[in-house]
């Protein structure tokens, strides 16, 4: 097969991954702002999309993809291997989106590339210490750090704005806590901007890697302008599409979030990401965001975290690397079979993507029903607690209805 054609396919696939990265991660910055009503769903994703687009241009440092350091030096990373790795990342991103689970897009990319590398060059190709250091341990600490930060900040916010019942009744003036929404607009925008500078870089890094490997670019020290524009556009369009299923999980599924908690969560997410990226300890944005939301949920008196949902999310994190790795490895076997295998792989991936989109239409979640729990379609994202509550409510309604008919009968 013409090498240029392979490169073109890889670039296309990389941009598709970038797109899934965008709509998978919209939730990180906008879910809490949408949940508290600080921003309307459409406006929130529009702001996130613009911030991601701008962010992609801001970082001039060339994205030396971390994925490369997970694969030992000396292993030749060719376009075919990247192709196989990307398919694993894309399919895992789409699957977790269908299930409404926030999971790290970077980990999916690492997993896919590692899986492909193992098939291409053997298990020795994988730098296991680097994998532990860059993927496994950060996954354990990211949500804890952001969670503790958001928990403490929520406590402090409620303490500082507390008013006695008497004073509220006497003056008719509340605690002003709903005004925290105005701060949320800024904190969520900051998170979106930092997301753009980080995540679009990964796609640019992958494309540059392939261009260099194919001899179309002399060295990996700069990124072609068209790559920057394409990557920025793909992530922005993906973000604007909005991964509503994941927004629903983050905004209402993990915990009930009020404006002060939303501000605390977003500030914790932003501060944790900025501290980690500037002090040399890369953390996953998605895991930071999930931890922040849970911490804020626990911080309010009477607030609670839906642990069953949280458990599902964390389980998803454990599967991210192996699952995308398996798909990456399976793809690699096909790709190794030659041009026909590569073509077959492409067809399979596209068919699987279309199938996932078709399944998602059965219970569509969009900006119009992202917040309403009642609109029947939300069965997938309902927690058992909500299901029980709904059942109890229905039973109560039925029993009162019975009583009234009985009374009527007595008369």
């Amino acid at each position, binding site marked *: 097969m013409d090498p240029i054609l392979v490169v073109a396919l890889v670039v296309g696939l990389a941009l598709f991954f970038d797109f899934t990265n965008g709509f998978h991660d919209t939730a990180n910055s906008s879910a809490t702002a949408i949940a508290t009503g600080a921003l309307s769903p459409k406006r929130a994703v529009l702001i996130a999309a613009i911030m991601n687009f701008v*962010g992609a241009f*801001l*970082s*001039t*440092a060339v994205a030396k993809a971390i994925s490369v350091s997970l694969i030992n030096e000396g292993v030749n990373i060719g376009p075919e291997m990247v192709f196989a790795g990307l398919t694993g990342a894309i399919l895992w991103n789409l699957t977790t989106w269908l299930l409404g689970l926030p999971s790290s897009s970077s980990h999916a990319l690492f997993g896919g590339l590692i899986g492909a590398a193992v098939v291409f060059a053997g298990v020795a190709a994988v730098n296991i*210490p680097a994998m*532990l*250091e860059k993927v496994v*341990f950060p996954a354990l*600490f990211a949500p804890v*750090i*952001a969670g*503790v*930060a*958001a928990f*403490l*900040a*929520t406590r*402090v*916010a409620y303490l*500082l*704005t507390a*008013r006695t019942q008497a*004073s509220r009744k006497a*003056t*008719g*003036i*509340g*605690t*002003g*806590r709903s*005004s*925290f929404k105005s*701060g949320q607009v*800024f*904190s969520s925008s*900051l998170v979106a*901007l*930092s997301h753009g*500078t980080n995540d679009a870089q990964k796609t640019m890094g992958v494309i540059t890697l392939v261009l260099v490997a194919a001899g179309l670019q002399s060295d990996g020290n700069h990124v072609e302008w068209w790559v920057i524009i394409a990557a920025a556009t793909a992530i922005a369009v993906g973000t604007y599409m909005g991964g509503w299923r994941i927004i629903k999980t983050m905004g209402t599924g993990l915990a009930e979030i009020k404006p*002060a908690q939303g*501000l*605390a969560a977003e*500030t*914790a997410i*932003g*501060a*944790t990401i*900025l*501290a*980690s990226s*500037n*002090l*040399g*300890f890369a*953390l996953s944005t998605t895991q930071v965001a999930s931890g922040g939301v849970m911490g804020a949920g626990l911080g309010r008196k009477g607030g609670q975290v839906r642990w069953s949902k949280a458990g599902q999310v964390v389980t998803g994190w454990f599967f991210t690397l192996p699952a995308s790795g398996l798909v990456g490895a399976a793809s690699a076997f096909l790709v190794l079979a030659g041009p026909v295998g590569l073509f077959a792989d492409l067809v399979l991936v596209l068919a699987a993507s279309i199938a996932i989109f078709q399944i998602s239409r059965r219970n569509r979640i969009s900006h119009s029903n992202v917040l309403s729990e009642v609109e029947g379609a939300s069965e997938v994202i309902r927690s058992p607690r909500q299901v029980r509550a709904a059942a109890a409510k229905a039973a109560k309604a039925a029993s009162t209805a019975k009583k009234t008919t009985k009374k009527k009968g007595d008369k």
Partner: protein
Amino acid sequence: MINWNSLLLVAAVAIGATVSVVAVFSLGMRFLTDARHIRSEGKKKDVAKPSEIIFRTAAYAMFTLCSMALIYGIYLIVPYFHLAK
């Protein structure tokens, strides 16, 4: 293997920064509602009392601090501002 020092540093900075920024913003909100309380207690509802003005100014000072934290955040995000050329 894992660099515990940098991990602890990240945790301390992240938690410290989050709590400080949210605390300052919350104080701002508190002062604003305090100012409204003072106005509602006064007899002349259309004239601002000195104490009300103090609370209002304090509130805006807090929000200014928060916006400075925001600007510092943007500064950290954009490498052009802080990387040696």
